[in-house]
């Protein structure tokens, strides 16, 4: 089935979203409460057992999904909101037919400025922010988001340049459409598919980054569970109770896999269809 990536990806991502949403209303047990003996085996009451403090793992996974989704969404939104306008601006400056030299320089300069951000991996930013205001979900989101801006800026610029070579952009100008109007009405709708794909991919990366950061204690502080920290805590008891690390690890893996598949599926769905039917 050609659309398999789309469906599988969609299902996986949908599950994560659903879990996160449901967790707001109901979890089997309070995720922070100690409800059973430590490291209990999976049973009917606790399908995945309990963790090293006696908290129900299923409940913790569910609540952990929240952090995953929230960090993913906010970080990507931040990255897109910052990166796309920069990229489109740079692309339009550079890609205009017969662009003046200053415009080309400006476009290039803008991209080099954005490139500076590349020098700051999310980790570094997170450490800086944590040192300044204390680690929290927010610092994690901001750090990851800012670190992802260059990715979006680049993709947006590349896609914008492609669009700018099309005659309809010139036609818009000949019709009297302003540059801003062109950006909104002509460039954005045509780069949207590419950006959508990038968003899926970045979402996956953001989740991994969050897991890493909370593993290092630079994100959501305890006792609120996040998958990353659950991994960390699982590491302590790795030899005695390996499944502690297994569940959150699988959760992360499936979420990222789902997002990547969704991204692939979206790309196949959106781009060629426009070209094929032409």
């Amino acid at each position, binding site marked *: 089935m050609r659309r398999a990536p789309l469906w599988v990806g969609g299902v996986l991502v949908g599950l994560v979203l659903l879990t996160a949403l449901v967790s707001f209303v109901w979890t089997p047990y309070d995720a922070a409460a100690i409800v059973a003996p430590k490291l209990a085996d999976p049973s009917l009451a606790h399908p995945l057992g309990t963790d090293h403090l006696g908290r129900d793992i299923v409940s913790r996974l569910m609540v952990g999904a929240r952090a995953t989704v929230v960090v993913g969404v906010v970080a990507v939104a931040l990255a897109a909101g910052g990166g796309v306008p920069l990229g489109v601006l740079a692309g339009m400056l550079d890609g205009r037919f017969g662009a003046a030299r200053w415009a080309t320089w400006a476009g290039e300069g803008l991209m080099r400025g954005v490139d500076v951000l590349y020098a700051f991996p999310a980790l570094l930013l997170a450490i800086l922010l944590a040192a300044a205001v204390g680690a929290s979900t927010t610092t994690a989101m901001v750090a990851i988001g800012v670190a992802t801006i260059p990715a979006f800026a680049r993709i947006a610029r590349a896609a914008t340049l492609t669009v700018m070579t099309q005659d309809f952009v010139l036609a818009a100008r000949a019709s009297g459409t302003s540059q801003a109007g062109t950006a909104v009405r002509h460039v954005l709708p045509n780069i949207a598919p590419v950006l959508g794909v990038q968003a899926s991919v970045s979402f996956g990366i953001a989740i991994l980054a969050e897991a890493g950061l909370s593993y290092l204690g630079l994100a959501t502080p305890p006792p609120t569970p996040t998958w990353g920290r659950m991994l960390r805590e699982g590491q302590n008891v790795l030899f005695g109770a390996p499944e502690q690390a297994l569940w959150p690890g699988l959760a992360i893996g499936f979420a990222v896999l789902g997002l990547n598949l969704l991204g692939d599926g979206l790309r196949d769905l959106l781009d*060629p*269809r426009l070209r*094929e*039917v*032409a």
Partner: protein
Amino acid sequence: MTEPLLVVEGLRVAFGRSRTEVLHGISFSMGPRERVGVIGESGSGKSVTALAIMGLLAENATVSGSVRLHGRELVGLRDRELAALRGDQMSMVFQEPMTALDPTMTVGRQVAEVLLLHQDLPRAAARQRVLEMLGEVGLADPVRVADSYPHALSGGQRQRCVLAMALINRPDLVICDEPTTALDVTVQARVLTLLDRELDAAEAACLFISHDLAIVSQVCSRVLVMLDGEIVEDGSVADIFNAPQHAYTRGLVATARLDQVEPGQRLPTVEDFYDRGSPSTGSPSTGSSSTGSPSTGSGTGAGGLGGRPTGSSSRGSPSTGAGTGSGTGTGLGSGPTVVS
């Protein structure tokens, strides 16, 4: 009567899982040294025919029927066997000189590659042969050209190199897919003269695909007219022009003879002669709401899109399958390329 060089019988080509058929069982034959033109609009199947003969269609293409070169059946041959024939007994010249050459290899190496694939020659001899060939196709400084990269050459020079590659092994059949469409008109004239000369020298037959009747009439002695995946007429150039049988051919001929129409007068269109009926895709014909303009409105929805199977979403639809061949997707040349 000499043995025909190429015999095509009942050739059918379908794409994709939905088996959308683009060629509906065409048949024709070519004698040695014969020059046959193939005329048709985009979507008529002419490029697909060429690629089918060469065995260059995409993987999701289903080919049935018979194609025999020198009596040897080509349909169903394994790619390795076909590859041995390509470049040697049959070769192809594509439309876009810019993309037909590898930008990362010097031209000399590329021409030599074709030579060495089919002949075992020591490098020095191969180089010699390459330079000879480049000179033969009219390049003024073969040594410089051989050591140049494609981007350093003009469109006309590149197309000459492509011709050199196609002819260096003295094939028996050369298939040209709109070889001059992307070239300037003065360059085109020279390349056509060159082609004529080289075909004679190589004693090769030529299957010349074009949308331009005038060019075909100069190069070829026979013409096949294709429409919607079928051959609707097959005759000598003189017959096609003087006594076209099929209505569509009549329309094409009328359209081509711009020189016979008074400037300012209405040009004859294909629809004047041949009614295509309801198009297979796109605009539903709601008849002409014309304000007196002669174009017959939505009936022309079939204009460029007519021959193609209804909006096939399969990957193998002609424009992608034949992409490299007919250059429909690569309209970057200095001249026009035909939009499918």
